[in-house]
């Protein structure tokens, strides 16, 4: 039970003092001192987010802009590095994508937003993983054409509010937030403070992610936490929530060796890109799309109560050979049982396939399960 208190080398987010005041247990994460849980604990925080609303400090994540002369130019530059369609991304829309290396492996997964304002033509907003920001930024800077620049943002915090009551709680201060559909974003005032709010998240619930001025982050967080529906939630519950939602954690479920096809995230690849290619590793990725990948990420539901964690081996039943590895796993509070995800050969990836997960030398029976483990509750506007 290692201790990890505010280390001098760790960076702090603008909400650090608030976390400490709220009794958070602070741990090192991607170079930052971050709250892993508050007094309520991971289980209660997880269930709070599923039943009402949770507030997450995700200011450690990287915020940046790609800036070019016009949308088409910036979008083409991003398309050269990712397998998604950004040229046709409409103003005010957000899209999930992956930065690919030349082997078609995933350098990082990220969210990209096209501003709704015409004044911002040629700008795309990026949110990248905390542990990958320096790698991503260096990659962009080495690969972007001369007329498209990466501008890292270091004066803004990022606050996620997630759960069935999240948007109502945010809309009490920023009414326009309620008008957004899933994966839509807009700039708006939150109690008079200029914020950029996207209706998206990492929990499978309805909710928003708010990019806010660093100096106003604490006031905004306090305003939301004053609402009875909202509680502060740490990284521990963030992880169990995203696992139940079937979402990848970079560096665990996807990395530089896994392609988007293996990682089962091909929803980030729109039709034109699948037809035309023109992205790093397109040879491998298009072949995998056509013929299937050798291995694929699947969901796993364990029969007993014992969890299987990252690194546990996946084997065929009845003392069969090891065929894969668990990449994320743990107890799922909403499901009330242990769940996991991991890589298996394509022939063993069908839902219902019986497999064993090897934990401390013992074989735990598990079944391949369609993800998400808990139904998504994203707010999709009809017709969009």
């Amino acid at each position: 039970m290692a201790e990890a208190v505010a280390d001098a080398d760790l960076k702090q987010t603008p909400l650090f003092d608030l976390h400490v005041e709220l009794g958070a247990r602070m741990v090192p994460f991607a170079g930052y001192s971050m709250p892993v849980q508050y007094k309520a604990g991971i289980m209660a925080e997880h269930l709070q987010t599923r039943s009402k609303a949770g507030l997450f400090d995700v200011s450690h994540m990287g915020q940046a802009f790609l800036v070019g002369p016009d949308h088409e130019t910036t979008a083409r530059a991003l398309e050269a590095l990712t397998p998604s369609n950004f040229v046709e991304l409409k103003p005010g829309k957000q899209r999930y994508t992956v930065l690919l290396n030349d082997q078609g492996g995933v350098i990082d997964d990220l969210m990209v937003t096209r501003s709704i304002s015409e004044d911002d033509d040629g700008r795309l907003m990026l949110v990248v993983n905390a542990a990958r920001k320096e790698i991503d930024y260096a990659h962009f800077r080495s690969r972007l054409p001369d007329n498209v620049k990466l501008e890292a943002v270091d004066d803004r915090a990022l606050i996620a509010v997630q759960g069935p009551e999240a948007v109502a709680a945010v809309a009490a201060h920023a009414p326009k937030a309620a008008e957004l559909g899933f994966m839509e974003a807009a700039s708006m005032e939150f109690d008079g403070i200029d914020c950029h709010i996207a209706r998206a998240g990492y929990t499978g619930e309805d909710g928003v992610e708010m990019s806010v001025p660093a100096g106003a982050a604490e006031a905004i967080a306090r305003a939301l936490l004053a609402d009875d529906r909202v509680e502060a939630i740490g990284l521990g519950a963030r992880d169990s929530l995203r696992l139940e939602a079937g979402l990848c954690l970079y560096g665990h479920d996807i990395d530089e060796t896994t392609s988007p096809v293996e990682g089962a995230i091909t929803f980030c690849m729109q039709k034109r890109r699948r037809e035309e290619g023109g992205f790093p590793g397109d040879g491998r990725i298009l072949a995998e799309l056509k013929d299937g990948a050798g291995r694929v990420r699947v969901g796993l539901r364990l029969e007993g109560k014992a969890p299987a964690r990252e690194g546990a081996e996946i084997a065929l039943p009845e003392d069969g050979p090891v065929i894969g590895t668990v990449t994320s796993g743990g107890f799922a509070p909403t499901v009330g049982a242990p769940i996991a995800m991991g890589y298996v050969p394509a022939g063993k990836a069908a839902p219902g396939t019986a497999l064993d997960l090897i934990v401390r030398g013992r074989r735990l029976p598990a079944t391949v399960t369609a993800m998400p483990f808990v139904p998504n509750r994203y707010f999709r506007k009809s017709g969009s």
Partner: protein
Amino acid sequence: MTTYYSKDHEWIDVEGDIATVGITSYAQEQLGDVVYVELPETGKSLSQGDEAAVVESVKAASEVYAPIDGEVVEANEVLAEEPAKVNEDPEGAAWFLKMKVGNEGQLADLMDEAAYKAYVETL
């Protein structure tokens, strides 16, 4: 009956030649919500420092070590069904196992309550 404590946050109550082993309140607080407990088989022979049980929280798995040598005479099967009891009553009803004391001399390696309290203060 005397209670001893280990640096790994186990407690051990010795009565006659039977020792009851559990984890301390400090340990359960650090673990957070316990969701699974793996207990040893009765009759298993443990040496001091051996993995005696495993306790899993939402976040991670942690080992419970045998504070002294001994043979497992009983495991608290209630914990297999109700692991959350470890959070509710760690130093009482949520004991993990009883063992037959194999080496009484090893109790001298452990801390008494005052020493353990002082140790936790330093963490």
